[in-house]
């Protein structure tokens, strides 16, 4: 039943070193969450969600596509819920493959996102009747993107992951650019540069582990 040949050593040291690298890469890939799901789901949510917001609520109240007023925010919310579930489940499944300090780090990092966004939502919810609609939209979107950028940079620091840090810094920078440009433009910039940045991050991560 047990194959006997795998009890034998490989004849050549170079083959052994190649075998070592192959098995190391295999396990890294098998226990890390799929970057296409972790980044891609959010990239698509930002691209479509903020894209629709831009088309309906453009700069200076311009309407590029006459969608029902409720549609962009509803789609954005649903896409965010879907992306949250996808990344939560993917991350949790990955964390369950291992036990120990790394798994705890992952759990704490995942919880940080939920707790931080809940706090932000409670705060911004207080301003619903104080600000005009376009300013209120900018407050929510700008806060959400700023927090996302900050948590990605923190993730880069935790795992010594340069690309994750760059993604976070990039997201933070385009957020500031969008905020200065004003409502409408912010949606466009976040959709293309922010969502696009996450899609690129997911693609690069996936290409590297193939």
């Amino acid at each position, binding site marked *: *039943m*047990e*194959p006997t*040949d*795998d*009890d*034998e*050593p*490989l*004849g*050549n*040291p*170079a083959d*052994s*070193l190649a*075998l*070592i*690298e192959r*098995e*190391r890469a*295999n*396990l*890294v890939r*098998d*226990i890390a969450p799929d970057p296409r799901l972790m980044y891609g789901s959010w990239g698509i949510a930002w691209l479509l969600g903020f894209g629709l917001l831009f088309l309906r609520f453009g700069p200076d109240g311009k309407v590029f596509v006459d969608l029902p007023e409720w549609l962009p925010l509803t789609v954005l919310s649903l896409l965010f819920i879907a992306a949250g579930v996808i990344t939560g489940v993917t991350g949790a499944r990955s964390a*369950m*493959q*291992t*036990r*120990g*300090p*790394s*798994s705890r780090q992952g759990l704490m990092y995942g919880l940080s996102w939920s707790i931080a966004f809940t706090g932000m939502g409670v705060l911004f919810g207080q301003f619903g009747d104080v600000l005009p609609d376009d300013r209120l939209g900018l407050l929510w979107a700008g806060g959400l993107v700023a927090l996302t950028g900050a948590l990605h940079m923190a993730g880069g620091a935790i795992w010594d992951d340069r690309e994750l840090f760059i993604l976070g810094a990039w997201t933070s920078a385009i957020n500031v650019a969008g905020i200065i440009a004003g409502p409408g433009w912010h949606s466009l910039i976040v959709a293309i540069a922010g969502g696009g940045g996450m899609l690129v991050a997911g693609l690069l991560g996936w290409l590297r582990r193939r």
Partner: protein
Amino acid sequence: MTDGAELDPVIHAQARLRVVSALSVLREDDQVTFPRLQDSLRMTAGNLSVHLRKLEDAGYVEVTKTHQGRTPATFVRLTRRGRLAFEEYQEALRALLNPAPISEEKL
């Protein structure tokens, strides 16, 4: 030719070298579930168990049987001793590829 006489016999067997290589990815004190390791190594459960037992006997890996809720779960980690043996094994392989001057080796 290199017959591996000076290489650690415990991890010189190809299957056990694969197990130790995969486990070396984990950070110290991190453990991986048995099924995930088995999947990643593409070994049968029986085969992996046999090799883990030999590595455990050498003090290179630690196998922990526990429960996640009601389902039994087995976790595997590389011990400090196993990591050291693995590093020395890799050093030995590299030395075989790039031999030091003979005069030094004889000393």
